[in-house]
C-alpha cells in the first residue's frame, strides 16, 4: 500500500498539532512548584459568599453580578450573612477586598493558564489611591 507513509505521516502531524497546548505550555512556562499564597483582604473579615463557594464558583458569581447589573439594573447584592454589597468589580471586588488585579486575580489566572481573563479589556484595575479607602 503506497498510501501508508501519507497516512502515518498525517496522523503524526495531527497528534503533534492537537497536543500543542501540552508541550508548548510545558516548554514555555516556568512552573512554580510551591503552593500559591494569596493575601487575604485586610479590611473585610467576611466574604460575600462562603469561602468554599468562592473558591469553586467565583466566576459564576461574577457572571450573576454582571447579569444583575447590566441586564436587570440591580446593583445591590444581599450576601448569605445579610450584608448588602454594591455589585461593582473595580470598587467592591478589588478596592473593597482583594486589592488589585495583579495582586489577586492574575496570581492564578496567569499562573496555571486558567481561563485567560478578558474582564480587564474593559473594566479598570483598582485605582492605586483608592486601594486604601474603605
Amino acid at each position, binding site marked *: 500500500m503506497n498510501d501508508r507513509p501519507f497516512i502515518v505521516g498525517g496522523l503524526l502531524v495531527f497528534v503533534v498539532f492537537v497536543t500543542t497546548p501540552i508541550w508548548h505550555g510545558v516548554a514555555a512556562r516556568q512552573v512554580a512548584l510551591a503552593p500559591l499564597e494569596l493575601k487575604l483582604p485586610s479590611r473585610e473579615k467576611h466574604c460575600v459568599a462562603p469561602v468554599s463557594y468562592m473558591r469553586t464558583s467565583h466566576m459564576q458569581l461574577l457572571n450573576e453580578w*454582571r447579569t444583575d447589573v*447590566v*441586564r436587570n*439594573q440591580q*446593583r445591590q447584592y444581599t450576601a448569605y450573612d445579610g450584608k448588602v454589597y454594591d455589585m461593582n468589580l*473595580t*470598587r467592591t471586588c478589588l478596592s473593597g477586598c482583594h486589592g488589585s488585579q495583579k495582586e489577586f486575580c492574575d496570581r492564578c489566572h496567569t499562573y496555571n493558564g486558567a481561563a485567560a481573563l478578558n474582564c480587564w*479589556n*474593559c*473594566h*479598570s*484595575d*483598582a*485605582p492605586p489611591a*483608592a486601594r486604601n479607602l474603605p
Partner: protein
Amino acid sequence: MKITRKQFLQLSGLSLIAMASKRLLRGTGSSASTESPKTIRWGMAIDVQKCRRKEGCNGCIKACHSAHNVPQFSDHAHEVKWVWKQPFEDAFPFAQTEYTREVFAGAPVLLLCNHCDDPPCQDVCPVDATWRTDNGVVTIDWHRCIGCRYCMAACPYGSRSFNWQDPRPAIPTVNPDFPTRTKGVVEKCNFCEERLAKKLTPLCVEACEEKALVFGDLEQPDSQIRKLLRSRFAVQRKPELGSGPSVYYLI
C-alpha cells in the same frame, strides 16, 4: 392491557400537548394577573436658546465623555461620541427655509440618543444586546454585542458610534469607576443609568451652567420636565417615524 403502537403514540402525543398547553396557560395567566408597578419614563428637555447663549460651550460634552471613558479620535470618520452639537439645519432637516434661515442659521443643537419609547435599534438587534429598560433608558450590554452594527443602520437619529479600533489609547484619562469598551462594539449615551440608580441626574444636566437641560420622569404629571412641556412649545426629532423619542427640544 394490550396496547398497539399506534394507540401508544396517540396517547403520548396527547399527553405532550396537554402538558405544553398547561405550561402555556400558566405562563399567560401569571403575566395577566401580575399588577404592573408604577412606571418611570426618563426624559430630557433641551432649551435650544439657553444652550446657545455661551458660544463654544461644551461643558456637558466634556463631563459625559470624561466620566464614561469615551475615546477621543481626531479622525472624524472613526469618532465616538455620546453627546455632541450640530447646526440646527442638520438636527431638524427641512425645518428651515430661506425665510427663516437668519434665526437659526448654524445654531448649535445638542444631540444624543433619544431613548425612544419604541426604539428601532431594539427591534433589529439579533442578540438582545440593546433594549429599552423599564425606566425608559435604552441601554447596551457590551458583553453581548457582536458588533454587527445593525442598530446603527436602524437608528434614525445617528446617535450611535462604533469602536472601529481599541478605544483605550484614545482615552485621555481613564475613569476607573466606569468600564471602557473594547474594539468591535457599539456605544451611545446611556442617560447616565449608573447615576440614575443612585438617584443622581445625568452628568450633562448637572454640568450645564445655563441650566438648559431639564431631566425628569415623563410619567409624573407634576415633574419639572412635564411642567416645562406644558408651558413651552417643544419639538422632537423626526417624530413622524413613530419611534417615540424621550428627548424634547424647546425652541
